[in-house]
C-alpha cells in the first residue's frame, strides 16, 4: 500500500515522497496539484473506446477503425523521433514498416513459425537498413537524408516486387486459421486494439523519456541548428544515427503489428510510398516534435480517411490523396507546428487577455 501511494505521488507531483509530510503540507500539495487532464482524457478515451462502441450497430467497423487509428499513431510516433525531434525528415519510413510487416509472414511461409518470431527479426533488419542509409547521409546536412530515404525506399520496393521468395508483386500470406493463441489470429479487432494500445503507450513512454534525457536535448539542439549544436560539443552524427535507428526499430514493430492483424502483405501495402506519406502527414498535422502530436494527428486523419473512403468509394481513393497533398502543403505553408502549435498559440492568446503584461513564454521557432 505505501508503495502504491508513493507511486501515485510520483505520478501527480513528478517527485518521490519526502520527509516532513504533515496534513498541512498535504493540503498545500493538493492545492498545488496539477492533474495532466489532457493525458488522462486521451488515454482514458482510448482505453474505453472499444467497450463504449461495443453496443452500437457498427461496432465491428468502429473497433476496426480504432485499431487502424492506434496503429497509425504508433508509426507516426516512431517517425516523429527522427522527423520531428531530430528534424531529419525521412520520406522513406515505409522501408522499416515493410521490414516489420514482411518478416512475420516470411517466417510463417518459410518455416511455418508463429508470425511473432518475425518481430525481432524485423527490428534487426530495419536497424541495419537505417544504418546503411544513415552513415553516409548524416555526414552531410539537410536534404540529402530525405533524398536518400526516398531513393532507398523505391529501390527496396522494386527489389521486393521482383523477388520470388518475398512473394514478388503478389505478396505473402500469414496463417489463415490460428494454430494456437501464439499465432495472434483473432476474429475480432478488439484484442488487436489493446495490443496496439499497449505498444502505443510504450512508444509514447520511450519518446517521453527520450525527450527529457540528455539525448532528447541533443536532438532538439540539432534541429534548431546543426552547426551550433556541433560547436557546443553535441556528437551530431552519432545522435542523429541513434535517433534514426530507434525510430526504425519502432516503425518496424508497427509493421509487424500490422502484419499480425491483416495477415497479408504486398509491396504496395508494406513498402509503398503512401505508407511513408501517412506517417508524415499524421505527425505533421498533429505537431511534429511534440509528444502527443502524432496521436492528435491520427485522431483527426484516420476517421477522416474512413469517412472519405466510405463516401467516395474505391474509385475516389485518388481524390483522398489529392486532399492529403493539399493538407501537407497547407501545413508546410501556414503552420509547420501542426495542431499542437495552434493550441499553444490559442492558450497563449487566452492568457494574454487575462494578464496583458505576461511575456511570451517561448521565442520564435528557430529555422
Amino acid at each position, binding site marked *: 500500500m505505501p508503495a502504491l501511494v508513493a507511486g501515485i505521488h510520483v505520478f501527480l507531483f513528478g517527485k518521490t515522497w519526502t520527509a516532513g509530510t504533515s496534513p498541512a503540507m498535504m493540503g498545500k500539495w493538493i492545492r498545488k496539484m496539477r492533474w495532466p487532464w489532457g493525458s488522462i482524457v486521451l488515454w482514458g478515451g482510448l482505453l474505453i473506446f472499444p467497450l463504449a462502441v461495443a453496443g452500437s450497430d457498427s461496432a465491428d467497423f468502429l473497433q476496426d477503425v480504432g485499431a487502424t487509428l492506434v496503429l497509425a499513431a504508433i508509426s507516426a510516433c516512431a517517425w516523429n523521433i527522427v*522527423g*520531428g525531434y531530430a*528534424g*531529419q*525528415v525521412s*520520406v522513406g519510413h515505409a522501408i522499416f514498416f515493410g521490414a516489420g510487416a514482411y518478416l512475420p509472414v516470411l517466417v510463417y511461409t518459410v518455416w511455418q513459425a508463429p508470425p511473432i518470431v518475425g518481430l525481432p527479426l524485423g527490428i534487426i533488419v530495419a536497424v541495419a537498413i537505417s544504418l*546503411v*542509409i544513415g*552513415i*553516409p*547521409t548524416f*555526414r*552531410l546536412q*539537410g*536534404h*540529402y537524408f*530525405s*533524398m*536518400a530515404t*526516398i*531513393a*532507398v525506399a*523505391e*529501390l527496396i520496393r*522494386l*527489389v521486393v516486387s*521482383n523477388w520470388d521468395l518475398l512473394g514478388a508483386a503478389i505478396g505473402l500470406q500469414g496463417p489463415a486459421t490460428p494454430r494456437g493463441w501464439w499465432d495472434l489470429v483473432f476474429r475480432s479487432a478488439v484484442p488487436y486494439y489493446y495490443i496496439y494500445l499497449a505498444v502505443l503507450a510504450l512508444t509514447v513512454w520511450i519518446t517521453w523519456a527520450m525527450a527529457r534525457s540528455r539525448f532528447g536535448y541533443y536532438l532538439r539542439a540539432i*534541429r534548431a541548428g546543426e552547426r551550433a549544436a556541433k560547436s557546443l560539443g553535441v556528437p551530431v552524427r552519432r545522435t542523429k544515427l541513434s535517433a534514426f535507428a530507434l525510430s526504425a526499430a519502432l516503425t518496424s514493430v508497427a509493421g509487424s503489428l500490422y502484419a499480425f492483424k491483416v495477415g497479408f502483405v504486398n509491396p504496395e501495402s508494406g513498402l509503398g*510510398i503512401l505508407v511513408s*506519406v501517412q506517417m*508524415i502527414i499524421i505527425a*505533421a498535422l498533429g505537431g*511534429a516534435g511534440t509528444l502527443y502530436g502524432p496521436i492528435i494527428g491520427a485522431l483527426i486523419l484516420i476517421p477522416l480517411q474512413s469517412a472519405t473512403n466510405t463516401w467516395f468509394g474505391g474509385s475516389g481513393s*485518388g*481524390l483522398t*490523396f*489529392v486532399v*492529403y*497533398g*493539399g*493538407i*501537407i*502543403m*497547407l*501545413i*508546410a*505553408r501556414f503552420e*509547420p507546428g501542426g495542431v499542437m502549435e495552434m493550441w499553444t498559440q490559442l492558450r497563449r492568446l487566452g492568457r494574454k487577455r487575462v494578464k496583458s503584461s505576461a511575456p511570451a513564454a517561448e521565442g520564435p*521557432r*528557430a*529555422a
Partner: protein
Amino acid sequence: MILLQAAVSGLLLGAVYALFSSGLTLIWGMMNFINFAHGEFVMLGMYVALVITWGQFGPEAYTPAAAIVLFALGAIVYAGLIRHVMRGPMLSQILSTFGLALLLRYAAFYVFKSDFRTLPDTSLSSTLDLGGIYVSKAQLLAGVVAGLLAIGMHVLLTRTALGSRMLAVAEDRSAAMLMGIRPDRMQALAWGLSAASAGIAGALMAIAYPFSPSVGETFVLTAFVVVSLGGFGSVPGAVIAGLTVGLVQALAGYLIGPIYKDVVVYAMFVGVLWIRPQGLLGTV
C-alpha cells in the same frame, strides 16, 4: 551491334534526363532547395502534349506549349508556396514540395486515369538507319533537342546578363538586392525555368515513349541520381551525369534484364552517397 544500339538509345534518353535534371540542379544551386515535385512537372509536360494533340496540333506545338504552361506553374508555385517556406524550418521546406508532388500526381490520376498513353502517330514515328543502328526519329529528336537545351541553360546562366543576375542572387541575396536586382523576381524566374525544362523534357519524351500519371516518381528519383552524381548546383555536371545514367540504365536493361534498369540506377545513387556524396564534379 545490339549493345551499340542499346547504348545509343540510352544516350538519347540520357540527354532528356540531363535537361530536366539541370532544372532541378538550378533550383538547388540558387536556393539550396530540393524540389520533390520535379518529376511531376515532367509528367505534366507529357500530359500537356497529350492535351495539345486533342486540338489537332502537330508535334512542333508540344514543346512550346509545355514550356509555357510549366513556366507559369513554376512561377506560381514559387510565389504562392516556396517563397514562404524557403527560410522556414526544414520540415516545411521538404513537406511543401512533397505535398505538391502528391497533389499533382493524384490529380493527374483523377483526370487522366491510370492507363498508359501514347501520342498518336505522326511524321516522327518512322525509324532512321544510321549505319546499322536503328533509331526512331522521335527518340533522336527528343535526345538532340534536350541536349541542346541543357547546354543552352548553361550558356544562359554563365554568358548572359540575366544569368549573372540569377547567380548573384544565389551567391548573396541581400548584396544582390543592393545592386538593384530583385531577388524574388530572379528566383521566380529560376523556378519558371526549372519547371519549363522539366515540362519540355516531358513533352519530348511523350513523343517517343508511353506514359502514365505514375511516371513522375521515377523521374524525380532519376533526377536525384543525376544531380547527386553530377554535383548539386552544377549544370555541366548534370549533363554529363544525365548521359551516364541513361547509358548505364540502357546497358543494365540489356545485360541484366529490363526490370533491373531502375534498380541499378537507384543503387548507383546509394553508392554515390557512400563514396562521394558531393557528386563527381561538385563541391560542398
